[in-house]
């Protein structure tokens, strides 16, 4: 007996050093063409200028393909196609008929979900775990959700017969390429608008695959058009006189430029811009789940999320314990090949973004905050940034005020609920916030006072098509998702 107890004790000191073997998702499911055109009036065509630009895999810097660069002539063509489709087909079509197309698109996205997931991972750099479990299922869910609204608009609270606006010009970011396309297209189409979508320069491929899905679903030509290109393409689109509605998700800087540009026109506008969310952890929080929420809040999608919980506000009495546990947890994060099914953190989307993250973290150190990263080996090629935590951050530091849009957490402390609210609101942004406490009344007290479009309680970065999403202040205006999301595309 004693021997066996002793044997147990030996085993205790030497647990298995268990390294997970690589588990890469196969790329074979995706066929990337050598070049891609614009999707206008139901067909793929080259840009009038014949110009193209490359898109690369940020994890390897390998060039994936070249994509047509849309110019003013292409914008004209796409807007005209959308106008015709709006007037002749999509606008007059009964909602119940429009719904059939949306359901069909949703189902095809589900059927081709693995293809979408792998392609998104390759083009964006995010882990396959996230594209497979979050991006793609949520994109399909948005189409399903808004398909359900298409024939019920008379009962949505916008009057007996709310009308669509017409042609929507939609410019989307690179952090959730397909999901943002779905957020924009699904409500616009459900309400009877037609769309010209401009995906981000660095991540055009899943939007083009979605265009192929529109063809597969027999969506009438011109209802959805996809123009690939850089900032100039987007600027031409939002400025085009044939556009009735502009929807933009991206940086606050570009959002302001768009607002100035279309001021005085009849165009309706919704903006979903940056954020610097506070994730507030009280001393009575479920600590281990709060740590998970902090990790999910700032390291989901490498922190390239406008609603990322980039400021951790933790009550001083538990700050040390929370940070210790956070560090221990971060040591288990797996950084590397986005296509490996066990990868938690993938690549940064572009060199430009990596430079911005690098610059801001250097500023954090220079301003006196203490920087920490877990030991992790980064691949030699591609754009990579280790998960990073700054402690000893004050409200005055740039890393507490500016959106970093990367895997960088700033830890600040507070003493009382009043101070937590004051610090959380002390930002030009107001997109999201998190509250961690076991006390229900405090959740409600906080939620009433936080000036943020989304307030999560004991969770973070959870999305549902039925829940509206949008910002206060410099985070933009208008809501996407839910019944509220319909308002952005209705003349109501």
């Amino acid at each position, binding site marked *: *007996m*004693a021997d*066996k*107890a002793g*044997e*147990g*004790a*030996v*085993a*205790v*000191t*030497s*647990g*298995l*050093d*268990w*390294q*997970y*073997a*690589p*588990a890469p998702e196969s790329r074979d499911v995706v066929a990337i063409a050598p070049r891609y055109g614009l999707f206008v009036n139901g067909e793929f065509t080259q840009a009038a200028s014949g110009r193209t630009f490359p898109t690369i895999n940020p994890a390897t810097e390998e060039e994936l393909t070249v994509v047509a660069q849309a110019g003013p002539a292409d914008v004209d063509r796409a807007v005209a196609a959308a106008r015709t489709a709006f007037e002749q087909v999509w606008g007059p079509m009964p909602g119940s008929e429009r719904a059939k197309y949306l359901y069909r698109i949703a189902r095809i996205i589900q059927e081709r979900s693995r293809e979408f997931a792998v392609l998104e991972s390759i083009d964006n750099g995010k882990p396959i*775990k996230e594209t497979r*479990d979050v991006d793609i299922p949520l994109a399909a869910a948005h189409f399903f959700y808004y398909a359900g609204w298409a024939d019920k608009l008379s009962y949505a609270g916008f009057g007996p017969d709310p009308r669509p606006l017409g042609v929507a010009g939609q410019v989307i970011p690179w952090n959730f390429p397909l999901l943002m396309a779905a957020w924009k297209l699904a409500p616009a189409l459900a309400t009877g608008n037609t769309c010209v979508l401009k995906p981000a320069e660095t991540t055009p491929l899943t939007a083009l695959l979605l265009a192929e899905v529109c063809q597969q679903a027999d969506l009438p030509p011109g209802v959805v058009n996809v123009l690939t290109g850089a900032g100039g393409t987007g600027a031409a689109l939002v400025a085009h006189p044939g556009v009735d509605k502009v929807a933009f998700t991206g940086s606050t800087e570009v959002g302001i430029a768009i607002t100035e540009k279309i001021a005085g026109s009849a165009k309706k506008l919704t903006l979903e811009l940056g954020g610097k969310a506070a994730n507030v952890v009280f001393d*009575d*929080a*479920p*600590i*281990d*789940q709060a740590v*998970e*929420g902090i990790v999910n809040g700032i390291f989901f999608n490498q922190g390239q999320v406008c609603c990322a919980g980039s400021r951790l506000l933790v009550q001083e009495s538990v700050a040390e*314990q929370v940070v210790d546990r956070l560090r221990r947890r971060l040591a*288990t994060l797996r950084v590397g090949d986005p296509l490996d*099914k*066990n990868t938690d953190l993938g690549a940064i989307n572009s060199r430009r973004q990596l430079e911005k993250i690098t610059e801001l973290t250097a500023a954090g150190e220079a301003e006196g905050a203490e920087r920490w990263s877990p030991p992790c080996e980064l691949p030699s090629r591609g754009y990579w940034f280790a998960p990073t935590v700054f402690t000893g951050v004050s409200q005055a530091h740039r890393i507490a005020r500016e959106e970093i849009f990367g895997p960088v957490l700033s830890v600040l402390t507070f003493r009382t609920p009043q101070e937590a609210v004051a610090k959380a609101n002390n930002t030009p942004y107001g997109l999201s916030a998190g509250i961690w406490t*076991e006390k229900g009344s405090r959740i409600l007290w906080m939620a009433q006072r936080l000036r943020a479009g989304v307030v999560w309680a*004991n*969770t973070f970065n959870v999305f549902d098509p039925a829940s509206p999403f949008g910002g206060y202040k410099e985070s933009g205006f208008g809501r996407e998702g839910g019944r509220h999301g319909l308002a952005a595309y209705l003349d109501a």
Partner: protein
Amino acid sequence: MLSSQLRSPQGGDWLAGVSSDAALRQLLHGLPGVDQVGVHARAAALATRSIKKEAKLAALDLAVTMVDLTTLEGADTPGKVRSLCAKAMRPDPADAAVPPVAAVCVYPDLVAAAKAELGRGTVAVASVATAFPSGRASLKVKLADVADAVDAGADEIDMVIDRGAFLAGRYGQVCEEIRAVKEACGPAHLKVILETAELATLDNVVRASWLAMLAGADFIKTSTGKVSPAATPPVALVMLAAVRDFEQASGRLVGVKVAGGIRTAKDAIRYLVLVNETAGRTWLAPGLFRIGASSLLNDLLRQRGKQLSGRYQGQDYFTLD
């Protein structure tokens, strides 16, 4: 947070001062709360880990060494137990490279039969005791049950806590029972079964885990296997976090045993992932993690064979027990 109070390696000195219900309540209810939604989400996320090739083979071999091969039926006989012991020592008659399991787990009256069969080998004899599975008997009867099993040669005792007393807030009583059983165990290792299905909430699971550890448990165990649901990944996650935190506070290592309903190698590997990413590497050893199961062993062998040969073998190539 509790480290200053828990310097004693057994937690004994500290407990001497506070074994009243009120004091224990203050301590156990002062532990951080557990958010059920968050725990379920984390367990589901870890279930998507993809374990392949050499990592899978290592996990399968490790899992075999962690099995407490169990038979707890009214119909058990010495013959059935002998056959189980043979399987425990040599899980795959065709492949000597397969390690023996950790223990066989039987009722107290069959300990002698198991002991006779296992002899001086490495496989331990574990016995459920304390009026398993309900625990509805007086402390005197429970201690006699334990003494019976220990006298017959049991190396490990799996006791059940008094869930009724726990749910009624009589923490002192639960604590005293565990301490008394621990004493009756002598050199035998004590596993304390929480029967988490009856505790119902994860907050209760954490409190019962700490109570058992403070009272001297060598292992905390999820379930008897007689109440559904038995072991679940969220419950295991919470218990693994508890042993990790207890070790940090007291310096004492306590093991975790998951039992009931674990039938496939895939399930077993998922539990090992939970161990690896929650408690950490130290617990990836049979001295600190066990899986109570019966049919699991054959699936581990089948998957092991598949990893080595590239092909699955039929059920008839694996012995029944």
